[in-house]
């Protein structure tokens, strides 16, 4: 049976986990829901991207978010030296597990950047939202079975 084409006509919910060290020094850290054009974002600030565990990303998806964006520092600028490298390994591991259950590793994304504003983070979340649209809504929302 050919797989049905995923429904791309929806407003993805993206949870953006970002390292506070990635922010511009002038930028006030922001958290919580942020509606954006064509998607909804929820910002969660971390002390370091290396603090995130695979299970946290998986649990966010299990609870219905359409995508998880992880924002960490450039590889050689991590204040905890290996934090953003660890984050990448955990995200890869979580992605492999997602592929095994047909959720698609594409629902996870890691971006490395410095001196960000909240608007920059939302723009990165928007890029993931576009990719997630090709995967369709998260089946865990309970509305696509």
């Amino acid at each position, binding site marked *: 049976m050919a797989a049905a084409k995923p429904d791309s006509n929806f407003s993805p919910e993206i949870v953006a986990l970002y390292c506070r060290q990635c922010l511009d020094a002038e930028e006030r850290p922001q958290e919580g829901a942020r509606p954006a054009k064509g998607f909804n974002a929820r910002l969660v600030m971390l002390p370091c991207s290396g603090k995130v565990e695979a299970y946290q990303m998986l649990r966010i*998806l299990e609870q219905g978010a359409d995508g998880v964006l992880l924002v960490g520092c450039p590889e050689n600028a991590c204040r905890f030296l290996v934090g953003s490298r660890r984050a990448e390994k955990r995200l890869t591991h979580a992605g492999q597990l997602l592929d095994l*259950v047909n959720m698609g590793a594409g629902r996870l994304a890691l971006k490395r950047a410095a001196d960000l504003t909240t608007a920059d983070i939302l723009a990165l979340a928007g890029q993931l939202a576009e990719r997630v649209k090709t995967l369709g809504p998260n089946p865990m929302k309970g509305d696509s079975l």
Partner: protein
Amino acid sequence: MIVAEWKPIPELLASLKGHKNVLLVGCATCVAECAAGGEREVLTLAPVLKMGLKDQGQEVNIITRTLERQCEPEFVEELAEIAPQVDAIMSLACGIGMQLVAERFIDLPLYPGVNTTSLAIREQPGLWTARCAACGDCMLGETFGLCPVARCAKSLMNGPCGGTRKDGKCEVDENTECIWRLIVERAEAKGRLEDLVKVRPSKNWSNSGHGGPKRMLREDLR
């Protein structure tokens, strides 16, 4: 530590077919150290199983718990309250812990979430290698602290097989040191190479698994 590893996800999903409420239970001791069945792995596997079953059209509620030690009845008892709420248990403990849970909650099907594979150390971050095979007649005193039972692919007792690679690795696995090369090197370094050619009494295999299930009895502790 006792080392275990997750069973393949499709196998785990197949075992939970038809169940509605599952208790996923880990152990905070050995299997946590080898990153297979501690709290973190329980929390990782639970959403994976839920998503995988949903993909197959099955809704499942997964309750997670991690016991301090799944191989001690006192800790297993902590599950008594939750057991009536579930129709199956999946355990991420070693085979020892799993059996205790299965015995305590005899009416519930118990599914192994991991395969128990070895007695090993964490040699590097993310790499565990076998050190002991619980042979029941430890010979480390004769082999300079290196175990040929667990660490030689052929469990040879009297020196290398002859297939040791030029770089000193085992002929069976290019990533594993030939343990007999290491034993010889250590003997040489200690100036005791001749100890290895001494005729030793034969090893007592009857105290290993070959003698049937082990039973250790200590009257002074009963």
